[in-house]
Every structure is written in structure tokens, then in C-alpha cells.
């Protein structure tokens, strides 16, 4: 990222242009329906946040260099070039006001996958030196130290000792030949260590052979947030190396949205080959354990609960039914938000937005959408499956003085788990 220049940015845009991008830009008739699906527009009424408009730099490069009419216009001197000043103006649009939640991609009448193109446009922004400083430094920490929050294995080791002493559960680390290698997000290590304890409790009961990897425990990937495939590749490679060294059959993505996108969907394409292990989201694995009768629950809560679908897991990841079946395992009073599953509204902090201080004020405004959605359900407990969504929602609710306890779904399953003392660890 050292010699970021406009030319490198433009080259990155060029590299990103493929048949879907060309089909999408060719099809846009500027109808503006995408704005109505975007929480950054609906909560501000500022038309500059219209999703398709966020792609104007990429669109110009496509039009001027990849279409006959654009080439003619350029030759005649009618083309408006992409400049440094333009990219500076577009920082707010491509980073602060987009979580790549892909809700706009679901409503576009001509079928444009706008989030797909925002991810691509960020490559050009990062290469031209226009990615947000906070997220760039997080990426630096992720590459050098091993996690975007600067957490080293030592910190995790300390948490593991804590958990083992408190709960009596055993947390396996670096076990070669285990079936499953669990990944974590730094937020879980620091803010929600209950997640690790819950995994230990559930896997012990279900007889799942699992391990953490001391060299590759961090699942988050700042590279895909800023739009740097180089960084993203290094971070995925670390996990692949860890999984191959321990010869595991499965890697488990944690309760973190973009980590799932990164390791499940982008990873093989970043490293240029398929994995020799499979990737499951923790909710998919828990649902499998439920279906095969390996885990059961008891003392279901009658508290009114609702579930916030993390965009990357539901709309962008297809993990939609599993969390609902798991909610029914812990609650007799599960209520859906009006727009849920693939139609959920983002918490406002995905895609690197929560790590970007420039975006904070806007993010809190956009959060009103989620706040209203939660209020409509009348729920007493909000459940989700992403540590980042959880922190963003907790902060948002605090900002608007709403009292609402939150819980991770894996922890809830662990709390209600039927524990058979005869199970061997």
C-alpha cells in the first residue's frame, strides 16, 4: 500500500471489471430504487448515499475504456476523467456509508449486484490511497501481529486459562488430526470469551473432536473490508496453513459476519485453489448437531426473543434457516423482525464501517433503522450471531438510551444444553 497513486487505483479498477460488472452498468436506468433499500439513505434522506452512485468512479472507467460509445466520447473529449479529487470525495460514499450489506443488490429491478461492485471499487480506492486510515492501521496489525485489534496468541492463551479455571472445560489447542478447527474473532477473545467456553461445552457434549490453532485463530479479514486482495490473501493463507498443518477436516467460522464471507466464499479465490478442508459457519454446525440428535436443549425460555441476521451470514451467506431452528431450541417465544433473513436491515457497522471513526456519526444515524426494527418486535432479548453486529447494536442502543440485553446464539444454545455427565471429554 506504500506507493498508492491514482494510476494504481485506476489499474485496480480495470482489473476488477468483468462481465457481471459490465452487464450491471449497462443495465442501470438511474431509477433510484436502490436508495430505498439502503439504510444510509432511508435514515438521512440524503440522495448522495444512493447505492449505485457510490460506484461512479468504477462506472466511468468501465464506460470510457470498455464500451464503444464511451471510447468514442473519450476520443471526442466528452469524457469526465476519474481524478484524485473525485476519489477523495468518494471515500465517504464507498467506505463510511456502505457496509456492503447487499440489500440494494436484492431490490434492483434490472438485477444489479451493487454490493459486489462496491467490494470491487474498494480495490481501486485502496490502491489509490483512499481507504480509511483506521481500517488501514487495523489491516497493518492483522498482518504484523495476527489480529486487527492487535491481540497476540498470548492474550488468547490467558483467556483460555481463565475459562478453563472458571468452567472446568478443556479448550484444545494445536491438536493435530482433530476434525474441526475453530476460528475466533478478536472481539470474541476480548469482549465475548463466553463464546469459546460455549464451544467447549457444546463440543464436549456432542463428542466433537476440535481444536484451536495458536498460529491461526483470528478469522476476521481487514483486507476484504478495505479492498485489498493482497492483504486478504495473506490473512486467509494463515488460516489455510494452520488448518493444513493440523490436518483438520473442517474449519468453523465464528460468530462474525465478514469472517464467514472471507474464509467461506472469498478465501479459495484469493489463494487461487480450492481448500482441502470444508468451511462451516458455527450455526450450520450447531444445526447439524441438532438434526443428528447430538445436542439437545432444556428449560426453554419464554422470554420474548428476536434474532438479528448478520448480513454476511444470511443475505450474503445463505445461513438463514439454521439460526431459526436454533432459536426454537432455546426459546418458546421467538419472534421475527418484520424484515428478516435475506431481507434484514444491517446494523450499520459491517464492511469495516464500525472500525472507521470517520463514519461514526453517520453510522449512529443509520442505526435508527435497526432500532425501530427491534422496537417493533417488542422483544426482551436480542440474539445475534456476529460479535461486530453485537457491539455495534449495543453501542447504538446505548446512544438512543434503549435498554435491551443481547446474547450470542451459540452462548444461548450452550446455556440451555442438556449436559450428560457421563460424556467423556
Amino acid at each position, binding site marked *: 500500500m506504500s506507493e498508492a497513486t491514482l494510476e494504481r487505483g485506476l489499474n485496480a479498477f480495470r482489473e476488477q*471489471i*468483468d*462481465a*457481471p*460488472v*459490465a*452487464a*450491471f452498468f*449497462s*443495465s*442501470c*436506468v*438511474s*431509477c*433510484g*430504487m436502490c*436508495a*430505498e*433499500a439502503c439504510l444510509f*439513505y*432511508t435514515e438521512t*434522506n440524503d*440522495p*448522495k448515499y*444512493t447505492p*449505485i*452512485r457510490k460506484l461512479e468512479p468504477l462506472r466511468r472507467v468501465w464506460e470510457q475504456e*470498455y*464500451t*464503444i*460509445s464511451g471510447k468514442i466520447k473519450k476520443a471526442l473529449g466528452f469524457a469526465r476523467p476519474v481524478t484524485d479529487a473525485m476519489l477523495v470525495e468518494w471515500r465517504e460514499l464507498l467506505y463510511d456509508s456502505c457496509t456492503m450489506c447487499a440489500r440494494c*443488490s*436484492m*431490490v*434492483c*429491478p*434490472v*438485477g444489479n*449486484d451493487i454490493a*459486489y461492485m462496491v467490494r470491487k471499487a474498494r480495490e481501486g480506492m485502496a490502491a489509490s490511497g483512499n481507504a480509511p486510515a483506521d481500517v488501514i492501521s487495523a489491516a497493518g496489525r492483522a498482518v504484523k501481529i495476527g489480529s486487527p485489534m492487535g491481540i497476540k496468541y498470548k492474550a488468547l492463551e490467558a483467556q483460555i486459562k481463565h475459562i478453563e479455571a472458571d468452567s472446568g472445560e478443556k479448550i484444545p489447542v494445536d491438536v493435530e488430526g482433530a476434525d474441526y478447527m475453530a476460528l475466533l474473532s478478536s472481539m470474541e477473545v476480548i469482549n465475548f470469551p463466553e463464546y469459546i467456553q460455549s464451544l467447549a461445552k457444546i463440543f464436549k457434549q456432542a463428542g466433537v473432536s476440535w481444536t484451536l490453532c495458536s498460529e491461526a485463530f483470528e478469522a476476521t479479514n481487514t483486507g476484504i473490508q478495505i479492498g485489498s486482495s493482497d492483504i486478504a490473501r495473506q490473512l486467509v493463507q494463515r488460516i489455510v496453513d494452520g488448518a493444513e498443518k493440523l490436518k483438520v477436516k473442517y474449519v468453523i467460522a465464528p460468530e462474525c459476519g465478514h469472517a464467514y464471507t472471507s474464509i*467461506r*466464499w*472469498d*478465501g*479459495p*479465490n484469493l489463494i487461487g*485453489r*480450492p*481448500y482441502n478442508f*470444508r468451511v462451516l459457519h458455527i450455526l450450520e454446525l450447531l444445526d447439524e448437531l441438532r438434526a443428528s440428535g447430538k445436542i439437545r436443549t432444556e428449560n426453554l425460555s419464554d422470554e420474548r426473543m428476536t434474532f438479528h441476521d448478520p448480513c454476511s451470514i*444470511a*443475505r*450474503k*451467506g*445463505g*445461513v*438463514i434457516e439454521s439460526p431459526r431452528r436454533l432459536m426454537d431450541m432455546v426459546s418458546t417465544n421467538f419472534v421475527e423482525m418484520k*424484515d428478516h433473513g*435475506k*431481507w434484514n436491515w444491517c446494523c450499520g457497522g459491517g464492511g469495516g464501517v464500525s472500525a472507521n471513526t470517520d463514519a461514526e456519526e453517520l453510522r449512529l444515524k443509520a442505526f435508527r433503522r435497526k432500532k425501530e426494527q427491534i422496537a417493533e418486535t417488542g422483544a426482551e432479548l436480542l440474539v445475534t450471531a456476529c460479535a461486530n453486529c453485537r457491539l455495534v447494536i449495543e453501542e447504538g442502543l446505548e446512544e438512543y438510551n434503549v435498554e435491551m440485553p443481547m446474547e450470542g446464539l451459540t452462548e444461548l444454545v450452550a446455556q440451555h444444553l442438556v449436559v450428560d455427565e457421563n460424556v467423556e471429554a
Partner: protein
Amino acid sequence: MNESMDFLLWARGTAFDVAVAIFVIGVIIRLFEIVSLGRANNLAEPKGSEFGPGMKTIVTRTLPEAGVFKRQPLTVIGGYVFHFGLLISLFLFIPHIELFAATFGFSWPGLPNPIVDAAAVLGIVGLLAVLWHRLTNPVMKILTEKEDYLVWLLTFLPLLTGYLAYHRLVNPYPFILGLHILSVELLLVLFPFTKLMHTFTLFLARWYNGAMNGRRGVES
């Protein structure tokens, strides 16, 4: 009268052939331009298939999601009204079908003239409504470029001149009919190089969207 007849014959003859040729070749080149860019082979293990969900999205995107419809009903209703009015006038007016038959060698049944007439009026009203919306809606205003007005005009003129010609509202008749044909030729010539291409590319766009999401196990 003779001059207007000459004009009509020219518009109906050479000009028409040239316009159709530019349209057909232009559309093919533009589609090739898009598809030839290709896309990277996806190495991630799929959760669902691509082809079926892609085809499904081509159909399902024709209807709006309820939430965005409630927020912007005019975009949706105006869009439906003018597209249907336009398509009915274009493809189901009997003289048009006869022209298609003469040009391409095949035909299909048409609708009675009064119905097509009503459709043309709806098309005109719908186009005026979406233009007004484009001029006043803040989101559309910020997105709109000169090309959006150009393609609006290219679409509007054939409907307007067709209506004027059908009702003999401009004299001499060969002149207005010639203008009508000329307006269509303008549409045909500029079609491949403007947003009018969405007529064809939206099938690609919807398919890619449905396929890429379908692969991840999401119906889009």
C-alpha cells in the same frame, strides 16, 4: 404532397434498412463487449447451483419488493405503465406486425386498434409521469445525466408521432408517418450505444445476480 411522399419512401426504404442494420450489429457488438469480459472461475465450494437461480431471478425481479414499492410507488407504477404501453403499441399493433412480417418473415396475432390506441395513450402518460418524477425526485435528480433525457426522448417520440399519425392529427399524412418512422430509426440507431441497451442486458444482469447468490444458497 409529393415531397412528403418522397420523404416517407426514403424513411421507409434506405433509412430504415440502415437503421435496422446499425441496431442489429450494434446490439451484437455491445453484448459481445460485455460477455467477452468473462468472469473468474469461482473456487469456493458452492452451496447451491447457478443456472436455475439465475433463470429464476430473471423472472422474479420483474416484481418489486414490498418495502421499496411502498417508499417509491410512482417509480414502479410509472415504469410498468409506460413499458406495457410501449410494448403493446410496438408489438401488438397490426400494421407493426405486418412490418415485422415483411422484414423478418414471421408474424403473430395483434390487438384491435382501439386497445392499442389506449395502450399508446397510457405509454405517453406513463412516460410523462416518469419524466416529471425524474425532474422532482431528489434521488433520481442526483443520478440523472443528459443521456437519461436523451433516451427518454428517443422513447417518447415514436409514441407521440405514432399517435399523431394514427389519428391523422398532422397533415399531410405521409409526412407525419415518415416522421414516425424516422423517430423509430433514431431510436434504433442510438439504441446500442445508450442505456436503451438495458432492454437486453437486464437479462444478463439478473442472471448474474441470481446465479452468484444462488451459488451461496440465497434466492435473490
